[in-house]
């Protein structure tokens, strides 16, 4: 469901978090939250960002459904991609699991979980409707 992922210097702290089941965000000394890839606080411009765990709760902002090419009589596989808003405010581009594309609407609650393409790869966050 998720693809293979290795770590690099930029993503290592975030992936340490996913490995222990946490979705980390960046936080500045004034307490503003920014997305994981931020190096400058979105709200105040501070560059003194630390890592802090989010609750992992989120809401759906938007979604798109990929359709694989049909293979004979087998219906093409569908996969739901989504933009989600963490309860702390930052947005994240991700996939949904166990989501019926027909039952989605903006604002529905979601919760993070983590998946690996295989044991040797990093844990990738995905979100499930609650």
């Amino acid at each position: 469901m998720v693809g293979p992922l290795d770590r690099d210097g930029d993503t290592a702290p975030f992936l340490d978090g996913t490995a222990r089941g946490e979705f980390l965000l960046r936080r500045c000394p004034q307490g503003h939250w920014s997305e994981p890839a931020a190096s400058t606080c979105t709200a105040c411009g501070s560059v003194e960002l630390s890592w802090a765990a989010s609750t992992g709760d989120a809401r759906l902002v938007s979604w798109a459904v990929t359709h694989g090419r049909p293979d004979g009589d087998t219906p093409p596989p569908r996969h739901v991609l989504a933009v989600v808003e963490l309860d702390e405010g930052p947005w994240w581009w991700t996939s949904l699991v166990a989501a019926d594309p027909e039952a989605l609407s903006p604002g529905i609650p979601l919760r993070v979980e983590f998946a690996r393409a295989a044991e040797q790869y990093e844990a990738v966050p995905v979100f499930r409707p609650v």
Partner: protein
Amino acid sequence: MSGPRDVAAGRRPVIAGLGLTDVGKVYGRSAQQFAADAVRLAVADAGLQMSDVDGLLTSSGVTRGVAMSLQRDLGLTDLALLSEMQAFGATAGAMVQMAALAVQSGTASVVACVFADDPLKEGKTAGSAYGTRRAPSGWGGLMGASGYAGPNPLYALAARRHMQTYGTTTEQLGAVAVAQRDWAVLNPLAQLRTPMTLADHAGSRWVVDPFRKLDCCLVSNGGAAVLVTTAERAADLARPPVHVHGWGQAHPGRLLKHSEDFGLVTGAVASGAKAFAMAGLTVQDVDVAELYDCYTYTVVVSLEDYGFCAKGEGGPFAASGALGPEGTLKLNTGGGQLSSYYLWGMTPLTEAVIQARGEAGERQADAHDIVLVSGNGGILDHHSTLILSPHPVSGGAA
């Protein structure tokens, strides 16, 4: 902001030459060869010699295949201006803006602006050029591992948000595709000239819902170039000059961040306002609009952002019959990236020059005094605007 009106009439920027290679499934030539051909065609079109060119701005597509070494390929020596430029789909407009500033300041006198790309490889699908997953590490790798490949899903997420917020429908997106195909039928340069219907759109396969295949642009090989010089220099050249009346850019910089504008409002709002202000015009003055149309949805949101209709009304506007050759707004008159050819920002720019000159044949708009050109790059994160006209800029400095 200093525009054409702030300099003497003879120094004001014009587009004096246009070069367009064969486009589409054209194999056996590299992007750099297409670029060289396009510049040669533009120089010949203007009635100039290659040695008259003293500025060169290059732009690459997805294969990143056009380098500054194009100077050597063209035998150009002692250039006064040379640079590679990159603002994705906004680059063509940005190149003309840079060239306009260069000629009106005297930095250079004849600047060639060229784009070329060669994503299509014989025997491979078009999607394989754009759908490549990123490296398996870094933040880009994390997006790839999360299921993202290429721009289609990111634009689909933007489109969905527009649809959910304003009620834009698949049928309304289809109306854009049908209207542009109707134009392409009239355009001998277009790759797709078979008439299509809303039912064809509705029956085309999903690429990524809410986009069907006929919501997505073509993929093309080819190159295009324009020559920018001053009104004074252009006066005795071969072709009628196309005057650059206004320009603007906007780069919101909110991609992959919390952005309430995502999918709803683009950089076209700010970019368009700057260009109209410089030109002393409003959207009501526009006779022909060539809007960047990587997807049908991009047209809908751009129509709103430029003020052709109210925010949220782009879908109903498209479905009202306002578009297409019989419509009230002459929009994407060559068929656009959806049906003619996909050369990033050069698709709207080349058609704009053809229309402004009045040389569009069967698809020529009767009124073409003011032509709007948009460029949209990244995921709605880079925008450029040009306002072109067959008439000189009036008033201003002596």
